[in-house]
């Protein structure tokens, strides 16, 4: 399996993980002029813009580490664009799949 295909499998797994925990997945691989986001999920009135990192051989935290401050800012941009300026509560999150299992960090701008 190429690393690209692994990435895809990762997004499907991530969507399934979130659905099983009561989130609603509202977008996958959303692209506009200003950016791209892997997954958008909703719980109640809160939206989560999520970068998916698939590292089946990596350690816990290795996916999260790969989301650089620059990438976080770009995710924020994509989130603003997706929301079209409508007031909405949202977080930037990261979901990593490593040999330690699936781990969801719901708010990577404010903690970590």
């Amino acid at each position: 399996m190429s690393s690209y295909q692994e990435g895809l499998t990762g997004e499907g797994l991530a969507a399934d993980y979130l659905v099983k925990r009561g989130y609603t997945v509202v977008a996958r691989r959303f692209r506009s002029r200003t950016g791209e986001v892997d997954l958008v999920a909703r719980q109640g009135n809160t939206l989560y813009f999520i970068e998916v990192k698939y590292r089946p051989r990596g350690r816990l935290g290795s996916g999260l580490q790969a989301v650089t401050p620059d990438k976080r800012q770009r995710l924020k941009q994509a989130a603003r664009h997706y929301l079209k300026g409508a007031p909405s509560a949202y977080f930037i999150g990261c979901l990593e799949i490593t040999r330690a299992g699936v781990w969801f960090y719901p708010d990577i701008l404010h903690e970590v």
Partner: protein
Amino acid sequence: MVSNERRQALYAYDQDLWHQGLRFAGIDEAGRGPLAGPVVAACVVFSPGTQMLDFIDDSKKLSEKRREAVCEEVFRWADFVGVGQVEAEEIDRINILEATKLAMRRAAQGAPAPLFLIDAVAGVGLSGRERPIIHGDAVSYSIAAASIVAKVTRDRQMRALGERFPGYGFARHKGYGTAAHMQAIRELGPCQEHRRSFLKSFAPP
């Protein structure tokens, strides 16, 4: 109500291609006609033999609530889902047909498929072979799935625009040229999400 036979026929079309050993994506668009908002395209790839989802059918025939539920199932079971969006201002710059193709290219970027089944549009400029199909969302299961994802995504965007630009009724008509929408444009003037190139014919922007 969606007939089961119809859904079987859609699935059979894709199954036939799977049996020929082809791997392909379905592509469809939403929002070519409206006076406001983005045009949104979706690209969906299922693994050969993926279970058939309920209520996959022409996106216009399902209720809004049902479409949302089906869309979520597609997000869950498809191998690949990509959504591409082109804003009103970009549409004015390059025209709606080119904007539709651009949205399709954004949606299909990185799709793991050498063949693309596309609803009604030819010459999109994708990385693989393209097969345009008229009324494709009533022919192919993958196109029908893409059609639902595109429509649901666009409708959500229009509801968000409705909050930001109240008075036009975007949440209701999703930007289409209903009588109420035209009247609102006459009274309020266009907002930044209106496609100026679409308004020329009925009122000076």
